[in-house]
């Protein structure tokens, strides 16, 4: 008979989620733990699967749009933007300059709002709960802007084919200026609470390290990729919608760890602010909605429209069969792909780091499950 020794240990299987405070929705991770050390992690997703791609095949090009709000509901404006860019390209529709600029501005606002939500939840996962509410305060200001322009706060149904629903309301420009004057100081405050804090550093530096080459192989994009030092931003690589007219920098990390990704997202918020400043300073006059047929029937064909969403490369592969409904709309979900890398990132880390890494991937389950 084999003698059991005192040091014989068993792998502990812990079910993290789908009801867990820091899996950001209904993600379920099956963790195998050796003590608190993660041996393996398997993600179970699909709890929020609504079949958006199937629904979009059964809706027209116009009234399918609200559904894309609801994939990545944190970045609803970006989602609609990416889809409409594709449809407009296929239809050959021109968007007036004013509308193009306002679209960019609102997408950048959405990026800030999304990053704020990310910072808030990331910080509260690691225990800094005050940052959570400070971030939500600023996000609230952005949502108020959304509300005054789009008429809704979260699932905005932001843009229409060939432009916007309505022009900017009165006082909107002033509100934007007030916000971007104030916002950089607020970012300084978050940094004052986190960036140099030794506990924050200890919790994020060296956690979830991934090299640039590996990150590419895993198909990561957005801040997660740039954290590993790969200079790839769709706004720069394949400018769309007029981004080439604006100046901004793409921050890059060096170590590819959670801390670098944090720094990058903070810097991206400042850069977005810069873009908004440029837009609002040079906002042209004119109509906000171009000419478009009432019924959209793109010719047979296909288009892969990609934009730089807040979470990474967001793509819409639209295939038309010449009818009023798309033959297929494939959403390239950035966080679906980055969540894959979770298994690789958490291996060998402690249980507490798992939530830090889930946080740093900035996942939204609505988009992962679609």
């Amino acid at each position, binding site marked *: 008979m084999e003698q059991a020794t005192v040091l014989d240990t068993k792998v502990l299987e812990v079910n993290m989620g789908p009801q867990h405070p820091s899996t950001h929705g209904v993600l379920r991770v099956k963790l195998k733990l050796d003590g608190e050390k993660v041996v393996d992690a398997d993600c179970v*997703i*699909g709890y929020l*699967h609504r*079949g958006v*791609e*199937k*629904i979009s*095949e*059964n809706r*027209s090009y116009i*009234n399918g749009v609200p559904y894309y709000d609801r994939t990545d509901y944190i970045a609803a404006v970006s989602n609609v933007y990416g889809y409409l860019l594709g449809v407009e*390209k296929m239809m*050959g529709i021109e968007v007036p300059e004013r509308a193009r600029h306002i679209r960019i501005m609102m997408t950048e606002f959405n990026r800030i709002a999304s990053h704020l939500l990310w910072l808030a939840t990331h910080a509260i996962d690691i225990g800094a709960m005050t940052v959570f509410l400070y971030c939500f305060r600023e996000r609230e200001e952005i949502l108020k802007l959304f509300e005054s322009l789009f008429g809704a706060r979260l699932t905005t149904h932001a843009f229409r084919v*060939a432009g916007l*629903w*309505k022009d900017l309301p009165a006082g909107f420009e002033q509100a934007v200026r007030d916000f971007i004057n104030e916002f950089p100081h607020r970012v300084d405050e978050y940094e004052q609470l986190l960036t140099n804090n030794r506990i924050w550093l200890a919790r994020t530096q060296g956690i979830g390290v991934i090299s640039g080459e590996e990150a*590419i*192989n*895993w*198909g990561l994009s957005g801040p997660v990729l740039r954290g590993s030092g*790969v200079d*790839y931003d769709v706004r720069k690589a*394949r400018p769309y919608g007029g981004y080439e007219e604006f100046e901004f920098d793409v921050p890059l990390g060096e170590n590819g760890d959670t801390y670098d990704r944090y720094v990058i997202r903070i810097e991206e918020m400042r850069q977005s602010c810069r873009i908004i400043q440029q837009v609002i300073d040079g906002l042209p006059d004119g*109509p*906000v*909605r*171009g*000419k*478009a*047929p*009432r*019924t*959209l*029937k793109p*010719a*047979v*064909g*296909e*288009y*892969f429209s*990609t934009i730089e969403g807040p979470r990474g*490369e967001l*793509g819409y*592969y639209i*295939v038309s*069969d*010449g*009818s*009023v*409904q798309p*033959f*297929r709309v*494939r959403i*390239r979900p950035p966080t*679906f*792909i980055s*969540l*894959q*890398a979770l298994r690789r990132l958490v291996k060998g880390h402690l249980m507490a780091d798992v939530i830090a890494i889930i946080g740093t991937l900035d996942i939204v389950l609505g988009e992962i*499950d679609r």
Partner: protein
Amino acid sequence: MSDEEKPKRDSEAQKTAGKTDLKEESAVAEEGAEKPPVKAEEGTEKSPVKDKPAPKPKVKKKIPSYEDVDDDPVFQKLNEKVAVSVLSVQNFLDQSICTVSLDGLYELMVDLRDNADLDFNYLVDMTALDYLGDEQRFCLVYQLYSYKLGRLIRIKTRAAEDEVVPSVSSIWKTADWLEREVYDLFGIEFSGHPDLRRILLPDDWHGYPLRKDYDIKLQDQAWISSHLKIRKTPV
């Protein structure tokens, strides 16, 4: 969308989809051009309050079409051995589309990534299309990006319903979940995939929702009644 099209909505896409084939695409494109979008009650719809587009003058637009490209530098640089499996190289709205045969898919993909001149090391996306009624029913679509060239290309390949597609998850780790998703929603099998399970739907679900013969309101009633303990949902 106008009045008349409304009742047809659910079935229309499927019917048209069934007819469509890559070879017939140009023909269908012309057909689409002949029938301009129906406009109902155009004059009355304009309201003074809302920023509506002005009634559109009927200008015949240039309709985008597939153009064959013979001298694309990317596909010129391919290894000769794998280049034979390239069936066609096309351009549509400035995006390159390369159709390859299923047999040569894997080798071509390996070459695209490992070829030092090409270096397509980023698999942006991978999905499938269902051309119901075709002999080779499915079309697999791979979007590749090369950081070195800064180019996005699309590789397409056709597969029949019972054909097994070689997995590219050993080339790009990204393909792991993407192939699982295609397997889950289209029911296409991949050979050489390390862990081919359903990903979005429950493991014991029957049916593949993104196939064109799967109606949008169809559900796996057996699964629902056994797991959710509810009777058949009214359709």
